[in-house]
């Protein structure tokens, strides 16, 4: 894939994840989880929102090399995340998968 495609996939995945994490279904799953999981979920929601804003503002040329260097991890992470978001039953594991994806995406643009 070229850098523009990796970029588009990453941004599309962040958007999809934000929509899932703001949904009523997510809220219900989060309330079934522990207080610690709820807190973790909220922190991740803001991470995802700020990553999508940062990537959305980025100039493709400036992050092209980082995208290519992390292509395999991004693709793998995306695949796992898509699978994880289809069922929110094991909420803690979904949060683990999101955390991994945030770490990989954070290599392209820093969170803070």
């Amino acid at each position: 894939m070229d850098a523009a495609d990796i970029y588009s996939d990453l941004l599309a995945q962040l958007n999809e994840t934000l929509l899932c994490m703001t949904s009523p279904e997510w809220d219900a799953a989060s309330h079934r989880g522990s207080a610690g999981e709820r807190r973790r979920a909220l922190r991740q929601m803001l991470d995802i929102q700020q990553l999508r804003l940062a990537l959305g503002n980025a100039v493709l040329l400036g992050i092209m090399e980082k995208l290519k260097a992390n292509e395999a991890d991004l693709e793998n992470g995306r695949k796992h995340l898509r699978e994880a978001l289809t069922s929110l039953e094991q909420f803690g594991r979904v949060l683990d998968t999101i955390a991994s994806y945030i770490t990989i995406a954070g290599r392209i643009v820093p969170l803070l």
Partner: protein
Amino acid sequence: MRIALYAAGLAACAVLSGCVSARVSQFSGFAQAGVAYVKASQTVLDEAGTAAVRNDSSVLRATRTAFSSDERRDRLARSNELLRQRLVLLKDVGRHGRLLQGYFETLAAMADSKNPEPLAKSASGVYDSISKLGTALRGSSIGTASVSSFMPDVAAPVVAALKVRALDAELRARSKAIAEELGLQEAVFKAIASDLRTDTKARINLEETQDVIAPYIGPRELPSDWASHREQVLFGSGALDRAEAASGAAKKLRECFNSLVQNRLDRASLSSLAVEINALLSLADHLQKAAL
């Protein structure tokens, strides 16, 4: 505003059929359509900026309790910085559109002028500004994908000979480049539409959870505005289906520009452009309602 712009589109069509000089009328009709397009697209750009800020505020509000006071300060500062950058980008898209409008108005003036040479210099200057801004926008992303990945393939329009030499030379030199800049508007609005959809949907999701579901399942009495919140959430989603209108008008404008250059711009083309511009305004209307 929608009715006024639609009327402007029809007036342009009427000018075309007046035929004192059909060719001059084509340029004037197209320039009027360009003004209407820029006005309508600016409304959508404003709404896109508002949607981005509102969604970010909703996420910050929903997640606030999960952060310490110091973290909140850092996170809010980061969000503000990112949103400021986004708003500058949207402003540049608007400026790019206004420069194109100025270029089309200059072409119309050249078509109707006995001394078009000074206007040709002005057109060249406006084009330089369009090109400079366009180069910067091509490298940007605005949300879901890089703008360049949305760029349509643009073929060089075949220029039909014109009596006004300066105008003929201008179109032969730059019609392809201008068609590409219109393609850029189309690509930018596709990216904006996609981003707008996510921002609006995420905000509506959070409002549904916080203002509709939580009070309803909770033990307290429902607040008096609960039903109106619910209506707002349910009707707000309607705007999402219309987001594509943003790039439809830009695409039609590019097609009309090609017809103009080839001396094929007719009443039907301008009418369908007016329809697309109205769709753009309708999108803005819906977004405003969704944001109430």
